[in-house]
């Protein structure tokens, strides 16, 4: 608990300051404060407090059933369509930002994965890992998510292929940071 408070001290100060501001606004009928509270803060909060716990349960379940390590074990130097699908799956199950994938790209190179597949792997981060997809659908709707996926997968697989070819042509190697 103490560690939690310490780690989040900035955020918690913001929350407390806002709490005081909110109480002041309500008590003295400070119009801008009430507007911020009602029109923005409460409207946003309502939606998220219901949505988020549900989404995080999904994320947790996903975490215990499909691990990054499991998929990585199967990749190695798989080539062809199977190789492409495997690297895409790896990106799909991996959480975290794109730059967290750079060290993984290095490991894949060491395991013998082709440059094209490595860059397709990086490009596949556009798909949003499964947990984040929950957020996307929750906040932007299923139609948005489906459309975005259908449109971005071909575009970004192509970008991965172009970058990978270019990388090979210039005899690039991935460095270990």
């Amino acid at each position, binding site marked *: 608990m103490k560690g939690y408070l310490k780690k989040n001290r900035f955020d918690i100060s913001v929350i407390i300051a*806002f709490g005081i501001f909110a109480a002041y606004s309500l008590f003295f009928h400070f119009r801008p404060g009430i507007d911020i509270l009602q029109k923005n803060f409460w409207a946003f909060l309502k939606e998220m407090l219901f949505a988020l716990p549900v989404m995080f349960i999904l994320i947790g379940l996903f975490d215990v059933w499909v691990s990054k390590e499991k998929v990585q074990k199967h990749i190695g130097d798989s080539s062809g369509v199977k190789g492409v699908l495997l690297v895409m799956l790896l990106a799909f199950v991996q959480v975290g930002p794109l730059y967290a994938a750079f060290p993984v790209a290095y490991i894949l190179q060491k395991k013998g994965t082709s440059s094209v597949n490595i860059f397709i792997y990086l490009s596949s981060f556009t798909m949003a890992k499964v947990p984040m997809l929950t957020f*996307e659908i*929750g906040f932007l709707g299923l139609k948005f998510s489906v459309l975005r996926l259908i449109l971005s997968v071909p575009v970004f697989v192509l970008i991965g292929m172009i970058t990978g070819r*270019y990388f090979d042509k210039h005899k690039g190697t991935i460095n270990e940071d």
Partner: protein
Amino acid sequence: MLYVIILTIVLTIVSFIFDKDKTLKGIKTGMKQFVNILPTLLSVIILISIVLYFISDKVLMEYLGAGAGLGAYFSAAILGAVAILPGFIAYPLSGILVQSGVSLAVIAVFITTLKMVGFMTIPIEQKYFGLKVTLMRNALSFVGALIVGIAMALILNYF
């Protein structure tokens, strides 16, 4: 939102039937992550609430709305390329922007560059792949995001 709730309930039940312990562990991990991001999320909602009060819908629309035309896509692309935001903040924020009237296609550009173009992380990326390849990957991804957004706009408007 309803889909997500139904999906979660169904999957939780299925998961529970297969493996009770694993399911409980998963729910626990998820809740722990939720509690961990809660303070950040709350303070981000507070800051967004305040900022959006001062930036009127009119100003927002001038840069990201229909009136900005293609410029809206560029603004969104640059915003996403420069920003470093985790998804659990970016998606609620995007939801808020959509409610304020920003189109889904513009949001698609923002989300895509946010994920795929890392202006701030170019120094890290170039250590791994070299500067040339890094710049190329980022530039192509920037263009790719615009293509995705514009294609989405065409589909949403004409179908």
